[in-house]
């Protein structure tokens, strides 16, 4: 197994870096490398991941980079002759990456809170000890950032959920959750992009086309975008 940690910078002692900490690196198969940022699930860590993504994405031996939630998967074009050298290169890039703030657009998503699609609102009230009205208010008053896209075409993982309405993923997923459900999964929130099994908790519904495979830019959301949920209707 390959678990490597970041080495301490000695040659660039004058360059002041915020404390980034040691990244964890592991392989998936023989040519995909996952680098996980240490520390909190926060915007600072994600900004370094965005920076690393731009650096590694430009390397000639890299086929694809996939930013996740404070982590980055780098897919190489072929199995490297020296995996250690690639890991070192990635860790060096992590150590040296400056914080990047992606300048995104602001997307307002109109939401019907409560009602027939809010299948988990009652459970969330029980879990949080808040009333349904409070849960909805806390959800739509926050401002969110798109950290990464993944899981389903165009699905944006949103950061910025108020800790009072964190809700663990369900141990038994809903068999068929509708596309458009506004959901909470742990400390993340997002809008379901596909109808199907889903472990997140639904509190409302948004009727918005967020993915079009024939468009020049197929996904509406991009990392760095700001998202606001605007209540079109609250049905409690």
């Amino acid at each position, binding site marked *: 197994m390959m678990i490597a940690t970041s080495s301490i910078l000695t040659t660039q002692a004058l360059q002041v870096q915020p404390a980034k900490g040691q990244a964890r690196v592991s392989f998936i198969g*023989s040519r995909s490398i996952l680098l996980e940022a240490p520390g909190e699930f926060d915007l600072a860590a994600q900004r370094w991941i965005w920076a690393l993504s731009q650096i590694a994405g430009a390397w000639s031996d890299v086929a694809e980079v996939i930013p996740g939630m*404070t982590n*980055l*998967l780098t897919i190489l074009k072929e199995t490297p002759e020296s995996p250690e050298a690639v890991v070192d290169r990635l860790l060096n890039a992590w150590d040296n990456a400056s914080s990047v703030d992606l300048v995104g657009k602001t997307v307002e998503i109109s939401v019907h809170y409560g009602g027939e699609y809010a299948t988990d609102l009652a459970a969330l009230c029980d879990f949080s000890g808040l009333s349904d009205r409070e849960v909805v208010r806390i959800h739509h008053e926050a401002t969110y950032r798109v950290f990464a896209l993944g899981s389903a*075409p165009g699905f944006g993982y949103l950061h910025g959920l108020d800790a009072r309405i964190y809700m663990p993923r369900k141990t038994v997923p809903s068999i068929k959750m509708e596309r458009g459900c506004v959901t909470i999964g742990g400390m993340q929130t997002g809008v379901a992009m596909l109808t199907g099994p889903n472990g997140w908790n639904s509190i409302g519904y948004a009727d918005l086309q967020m993915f079009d*495979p024939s468009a020049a830019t197929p996904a509406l959301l991009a990392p760095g975008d700001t998202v606001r949920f605007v209540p079109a209707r609250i049905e409690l």
Partner: protein
Amino acid sequence: MIEIIETGPFNTVQDLGRPGYRNIGVTAGGAMDPLALQIANVLVGNADSLAAVEVQTFPFKLRFLGPSVFAVAGVDGCPLLNGRELLPWCANLANEGDVLELSAPPRLARAYIAVAGGVDVPVLMGSRSTALRGNFGGVEGRPLQKNDRLSIGTQVNHLPLPASGLAVIQPSQAMADVFEPIVDGVLQIRAIPAGEHHLFADDAEAFWSQIWRISSRSDRTGYRLSGDPIKPTEVVEMRSHGVVPGVVQVPPGGEPIIQMSDANTAGGYPKIAGVIEADLWRLGQARAGGKIRFVRSSHEEARRIEQTVARYVEDIRQTVPMVKRALNALT
């Protein structure tokens, strides 16, 4: 043009997939056995990237609505053209109205029918592959249905096919020295330990030593394995991260899932291992009920196998046009 006369569910148009969009949540997709697809394309004189029909539920029948050069690769067992047995892994000529029939293969899972010119459905995000998650690509984003008619592209600079057809030695035979034959029905799949392997402690050994069965709840997205559950010594809450086909994740129940061609693009279950990319085509030919055992591999071995496969494909790519020219010169 070809017309589908009979099909099971979940047969689709596939090419080599649409890598490059996982960062917006779009799976790469593409053929479950990309090697067979490539060889079928080379046999009929197509570029590797052209689309073919992937058949994974049988029986399957299609009619050629015009004269066509075609090849069937991937499975064992012989395709029938108008009821006459053909060699597998062989390019043949079909006349207008001819019917190609594939019955359930003896052991393997997926057949690729390539036609000279390629199946011509619209290219979406760089590929003609059907994305069943998201319902786009291929034919209206759905599996093939009876009476579907598929256009075939026009082939430029094609060499006529010898009347006797043209066959290749299939990969499992041609590269028997690097791909161990299936013994007692157990397919050996090479993998490299992944990020959370250490969390499984003693259960990690149980993962490598036991024979897993591919459950019936398996499809192009992933194979669920059944066997003695393995559990990590501690439960870690992982942040969602990108995954690729071949990743072996262990959900709370303890029975691993291998993500396949239509892999989810992100995941958060602990990863015990990752199948080496060069073995994915063999896994793509394994079917529900089949048995597999994981064998610890290394980057060095993975690279060697990758290069062997690349040489095999390149050899065929060089040889096919040479043989066509030589045989055509004789007639």
